[in-house]
C-alpha cells in the first residue's frame, strides 16, 4: 500500500468512503487485505455527479410522470370517466355558449331540455376540469391526450433533428475542405430561414395532405409539425458536432483506426459518434423543451395539430375565445407547457453539469 493510499484510507475512515470515492472518482472496495481501489467508469462518474443534483432529478421525475400521465394515465382516466377526449356533450355548454367550469357533473341528455324516461335517468357525466369550449368536450381528458401529441412532436422533432445534425456535422467536421464548406453553407441557410413563415405557407399549401399522414399512431397534424420543426432545427446539433469532430479527428485513436484500415464510415460511426453522446443528450433535453413551446406556438397560430386531435397548443389556441368568462381554460395547458419546458430545461442543466463538471464552475 502506498503512502497515498494509506492517506486515502485514513481519510475514508474519518470522513466517510462516499466522499473519498467522489473525490477520487474510484470505488473503494473491501478486500481481505484492506481497501482495493477500482477506477470508476465515465458513465458511473456522470451518474454520481448527476444524482447529487436534486433539482435535475426532480426535473427527470417530472418528465417521467408527465409521460406516464399522458400515455398511460390518459386511457385509464378515459375508461374511468366513461367517455373519450373527442366526445361532444350538449350538457357541457351553457345556453350562452360558455363551457362548464371545473368539477362539473351533468346529465348526458340527447338534447337540451330532453326529459328522461321514468326509471331511466340520463347517465351522469363528470368533467374534472370542466369543458373545453362551445363544443363541450372534457378539458381534463383533452389535456392528458394533448400531452401525447405535444410530447410526440417534441420528442419526434428532437430525434430527427439530432440524427440529421449528427450526420451533417460529422461529415462536415471529418472531411473538412470543400465538403465542410458546402455543409456549413447549407447549415447557415437553414439557420437563417424564416421557419414560422415557411410552416404557415406549408400548412396552407399542403396542410391537409401532410395532416393525413399519421403513420398509424400519430394524431392528425403531428407528422407535419415533426417534419417542419426537425427540418429547420438540425443546424444547431450540426454545428456542435462539427466543432467536436474537427477536434476529435486529429486524436491518436482516430489516427490508429485509420492505420489499421478502418473505413471513414466506420471511424465516424464507431470512434467519433460515441464521443458525441454526452453533448447530444444535453442538447436533446433543451431541444425537447423548445419543441414543446414551438408546438404550442404553431398550434396557437392555427398551423399545428389538427382538431379534434388535442394538443396543449390547440387547447391554448381555443382558450382566448373565453378569456373574459372562463380564464382558467388558458391556465391548464399553459401550466402543462410551463412544467414540461421547465422540467426538460432543469434536466438538461443537470446533465450538462454531470457530463462536464467544469461547466458548472
Amino acid at each position: 500500500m502506498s503512502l497515498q493510499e494509506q492517506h486515502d484510507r485514513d481519510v475514508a475512515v474519518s470522513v466517510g468512503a462516499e466522499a473519498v470515492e467522489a473525490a477520487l472518482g474510484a470505488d473503494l472496495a473491501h478486500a481481505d487485505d484492506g481497501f482495493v481501489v477500482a477506477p470508476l467508469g465515465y458513465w458511473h462518474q456522470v451518474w454520481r455527479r448527476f444524482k447529487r443534483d436534486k433539482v435535475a432529478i426532480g426535473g427527470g421525475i417530472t418528465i417521467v410522470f408527465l409521460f406516464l400521465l399522458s400515455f398511460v394515465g390518459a386511457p385509464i382516466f378515459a375508461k374511468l370517466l366513461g367517455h373519450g377526449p373527442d366526445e361532444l356533450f350538449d350538457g357541457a355548454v351553457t345556453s350562452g355558449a360558455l363551457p362548464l367550469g371545473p368539477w362539473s357533473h351533468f346529465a348526458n341528455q340527447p338534447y337540451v331540455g330532453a326529459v328522461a324516461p321514468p326509471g331511466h335517468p340520463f347517465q351522469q357525466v363528470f368533467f374534472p376540469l370542466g369543458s373545453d369550449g362551445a363544443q363541450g368536450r372534457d378539458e381534463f381528458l383533452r389535456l392528458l391526450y394533448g400531452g401525447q401529441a405535444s410530447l410526440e412532436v417534441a420528442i419526434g422533432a428532437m430525434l430527427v433533428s439530432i440524427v440529421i445534425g449528427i450526420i451533417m456535422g460529422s461529415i462536415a467536421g471529418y472531411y473538412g475542405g470543400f465538403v465542410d464548406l458546402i455543409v456549413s453553407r447549407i447549415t447557415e441557410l437553414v439557420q437563417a430561414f424564416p421557419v414560422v413563415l415557411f410552416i404557415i405557407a406549408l400548412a396552407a399549401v399542403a396542410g391537409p395532405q401532410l395532416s393525413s399522414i399519421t403513420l398509424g399512431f400519430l394524431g392528425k397534424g403531428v407528422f407535419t409539425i415533426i417534419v417542419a420543426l426537425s427540418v429547420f432545427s438540425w443546424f444547431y446539433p450540426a454545428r456542435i458536432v462539427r466543432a467536436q469532430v474537427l477536434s476529435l479527428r486529429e486524436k491518436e485513436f482516430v489516427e490508429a483506426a485509420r492505420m489499421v484500415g478502418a473505413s471513414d464510415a466506420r471511424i465516424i460511426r464507431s470512434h467519433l459518434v460515441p464521443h458525441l453522446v454526452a453533448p447530444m443528450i444535453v442538447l436533446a433535453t433543451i431541444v425537447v423543451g423548445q419543441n414543446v413551446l414551438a408546438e404550442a406556438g404553431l398550434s396557437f397560430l392555427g398551423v399545428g395539430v389538427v382538431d379534434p386531435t388535442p394538443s396543449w397548443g390547440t387547447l391554448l389556441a381555443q382558450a382566448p375565445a373565453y378569456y373574459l368568462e372562463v380564464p382558467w381554460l388558458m391556465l391548464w395547458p399553459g401550466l402543462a407547457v410551463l412544467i414540461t419546458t421547465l422540467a426538460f430545461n432543469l434536466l438538461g442543466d443537470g446533465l450538462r453539469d454531470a457530463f462536464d463538471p467544469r461547466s458548472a464552475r
Partner: protein
Amino acid sequence: MRKRLWYTAPLSLIAVSVLAALLAVTASAQSSASNASGTLNFGSAGADVDFTDPALAYGVLSWQIEYETCLQLVNYPDKTGAAGSQLQPDAAAAMPVISNGGKTYTFTIKKGLKFSDGATVSPADFVWAFNRDANPAMQSPVIPFITDVVGVNDVVNKKAKAVTGVKADGQKFIINLTKPDGALLAKLTMPFFCAVERAKTPIDPKGLNTLPGAGPYYIASRTPGKQLVLKKNPFYKGDRPARSSTMVFTMNTNDQQTYLQVTNGTYAADPNGLDVPTAAAGLAKKYGINKSRFWVNSLVETDYLALNTANKAFGSLAARKAANYAVDRPAVLRARGFEGGVRTSTILPKALAGGYWGQKIYATKGADPAKAKQLNPNCGHVNLWGGNTTLAQTQEGIVRYNLTQAGCDVTVKQFGGYAIYTAAGTKGADFDIMFSGWNQDYPDPIDFFGILLDGRNIHAQNNNNLAYINNAELNKKIDQANAITGEGRLKAFGKLDIWTTTHLAPWVSIDNRNLRDYIGPNVAGYVFQPAKAAMDLGTLYLK
C-alpha cells in the same frame, strides 16, 4: 363717483349676464355640432368589404356602406320595424308608372340631385349603372337578377354593347322588361342599380375603390384590408340622415379586441354585429335587450350546410336525408351564443315562408345518428368546408363529430373571408358539404329559390347554387311559384320549401340568425334597418 356707480353696477350685471348667455349658446351650439358632425370609428372584426364598387359589392358590410353612399331610384327608409320595409321613392320624384302590362317602368328623376364631386345626377347615370352591371368584363353578380331586362342577355353574351331595355328621356328613366317582374322594385333597391357618374366610373373588372357618391355619404378613401373612410356628401340635399361627418372603418380587427374597444368607447360598434358569441348573455343581462347598448333583431336569413349533389358523398337523396338527421342543430346554433337565432330544418326564413315555417321535417332538437346510419350505412369520406374564425371552427368541430358519429370519415378544410365562396362557387369544387348562409337581397322568396336552388343558373364560376342541384321538377315548381303574385306568393313558396326539403334535401338548414349589435357608451341613434338586415350607419351619432 358715487353718482356714476349706481348705474355702473346694474350695467355690469347685464354685461355679465349677456356674456354668460352667449357662452351658454356657444357651448350648446358646439355640443350639438359634435352630435351632428363627429367622427364615428368602427372596428370590423375579421372582415373587410368585398368591394366598394356598386357593380361588384355583394356582402352585408359592403351593402351597409353602399346604403349610405348610393342614390337609388327607390329605397327603404332609415327606419326600423315595418316602416323600414316600405319602399319609397329616393332619386325618383314618385313611385314609377308601370305600363305595358307590367313590362315598362317609367321613373321621373328629381332635379337638383348631385354627386359628392358636384356633378348633377341625371337619368343617364342610372342607364350607365345598368350598362356597367351587364358589361361582361365587370363579371357583376347582379346578372341573375336582371335577365328579364330587355337587352341584358345580349350584352352579357357580347352581342350588344348597351342594354336596349333601359333608356333616359329628359328627366325620365325607363326600364323595359321581357316579362312582368313583380319583384323589380325590390330588386332596384340593391346597390347594383344606384346612380354612377359615367366620367368617374369606367369599366374596371377589379372594381373601383373610391367613386363619387350621390347618397348622404361618399367613399373618401379605401385601403383594402385595412381602412375605409366615409365622408358626408356636401351636395346631398335629401332627407336621409347623416348624423356624423365622417365614418372611419378599421378592417380585419381582432374580434375580442374589437369587443373590448366598443366597450370602452374607442369604437362606436362593429358594423358586422357582435362577433364574440360568449359575450351576448352578459350584455343582455347588463344592458337589457333593445334598450340601450345591446340590440337583437331577427334577420331574414338562413344558415345552412350545402350538400354538394354533384359529388358522390351526397349525390343520393338518402345520403342527404341522413346528413339532415346526423347534424345536431341546437349544438351548432348554440355556438352562436345567447340569442344567436332560431333553429330550422327548412329553407325559407319565417318572414318569407307564408306560414309554413317551423315544420320539423328533420330532427331539430338534436342529432339522430342511428337514423342517419340507417339511411346511409356507407357514408364514406366527406370533405367539409368552412370558415376559419373561432365560431366557424367550433361549428365545424360539431358537424365533423356528428358526421363521424353517423359513420362518415370527415376532412375539414378552412377558408378565410370570402375565399370559400370563390372556391365553392366554381363548378366541380371538391367539397361534399359546406357551411353557408344566405341573407335576403330583397324581401322575396325568389331571392332564395331563384338564386340558390334553380339549376338553370349554374355556371362555370361564381355560383350561388352551392348544392349544385339542377332538378327539372324543382325548376318547374320555382317558375310556377314565381308566377304567383299577391298573398298567395309566399304560401306557394312556403309549400315549395316543404316539398324541396322533403323530396330533395339539398341543404341541412341549421338556423335563422339574429343580428346582435353592441354599440359604444358614447353612441346613440341606433336603428336596425330590416330590409338591409343591418344597423343603419347614417343614424348613429356621438352623444
